[in-house]
């Protein structure tokens, strides 16, 4: 009925994995190679889908490549410290090694389909929080199976395990 955000069971071994994953990723707000300000880009009128272009067509939302960033940044806003870093990547013809913020634990074996959720009119913020107010994306919503299932139940979406685990 209501969204449940608390977890009653946090088995110790998983806590361990979580903690070590966090320590590797460097705390909840991942330390990104470039402090990408989501809020600035959204304020300029960009939509999520403008950069995460495959979100409505593919499983993965997609991260923009350096080439894509440079489409704009070779014309506008060429000076900021972040953009300077971007220029270095662009010159080296390397991609930015972004840290993942949202992911399912590998052992959860979830095949998440962004596209299917966009078609079902699930808003980005339902699962990612209010990214438009963030600079660097932060883990605002914890993705547990209970959370997925609660939403699926509310919307009468499939509850077949094979929908996500195969």
């Amino acid at each position, binding site marked *: 009925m209501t969204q449940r955000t608390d977890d009653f069971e946090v088995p110790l071994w998983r806590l361990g994995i979580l903690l070590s994953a966090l320590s590797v990723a460097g705390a909840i707000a991942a330390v990104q190679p470039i402090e990408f300000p989501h809020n600035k880009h959204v304020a300029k009128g960009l939509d999520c889908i403008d950069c995460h272009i495959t979100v409505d*067509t593919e499983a993965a939302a997609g991260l923009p490549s350096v080439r894509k960033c440079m489409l704009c940044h070779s014309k506008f806003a060429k000076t900021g410290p972040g953009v300077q870093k971007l220029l270095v990547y662009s010159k080296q013809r390397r991609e930015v090694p972004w840290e993942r913020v949202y992911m399912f634990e590998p052992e959860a*074996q979830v*095949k998440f*389909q962004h*596209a*299917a959720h966009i078609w079902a009119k699930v808003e980005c913020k339902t699962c990612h929080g209010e990214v438009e107010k963030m600079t660097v994306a932060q883990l605002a919503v914890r993705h547990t199976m209970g959370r997925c299932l609660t939403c699926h139940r509310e919307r009468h979406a499939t509850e077949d395990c*094979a*929908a996500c*685990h*195969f």
Partner: protein
Amino acid sequence: MDQQDTKPHRWGMAIDLDRCTGCEACVAACHAENNLPLSTPDSAAKGRAFHWIRIDRYYEGAFPDIKVKFMPVLCQQCDEAPCEPVCPVYATYHNAEGLNVQVYNRCVGTRYCANNCPYSVRFFNWFEPVWPEPLTLQLNPDVFVRPVGVMEKCTFCSQRIKRAELEAKQESRSLRDGEVQPACVQSCPAEAMVFGDLNDPASRVSRLAQSGRATRFMEDLGTQPKVFYLKRGE
């Protein structure tokens, strides 16, 4: 909302034994599609090789009047699957499309389902699977690599079904007959295997399942398999 979803699919397969030559193309196709762990001479000798589909061979008679019976055996996706009730954690269950699903991440590894499968099509991950680099580059990202301690088996290539269903949904249409093909069916040179929706009376597989040659494997056990074998003719 989803008009085409009012009647769920019921996936089934027909295998024409009169066409099957035993060439094992399906076996290789399955390995390529489903990230089956590689065996080694040692692990194979210990009976730990994986083949979600295999060609059973039985010799009948004696030389020179000898025949061999080749029979591709894969998970029969039974409607009354003996593996399902015995799983204590619902890691294997029946879904709305009639698939006998194995949820790898839910499996705790009691292996009861494997004992109870009369077709012996279930395989257990005795070890964490390894691929020497760079063979990992071949792994299909649509299919999970099963970790140590879980059961696995043929899924009717549910990742392909899923892909096709999403594609159809995106184009707002229903699936066409023959649009979904598991890797084994796709590869079969003699076209011995046909896959499709048993709920659609016009599908090729439905028509073959109705044909006089169709039998099901160990039907007497009441497992209600969804793989139909078409007998060899004279």
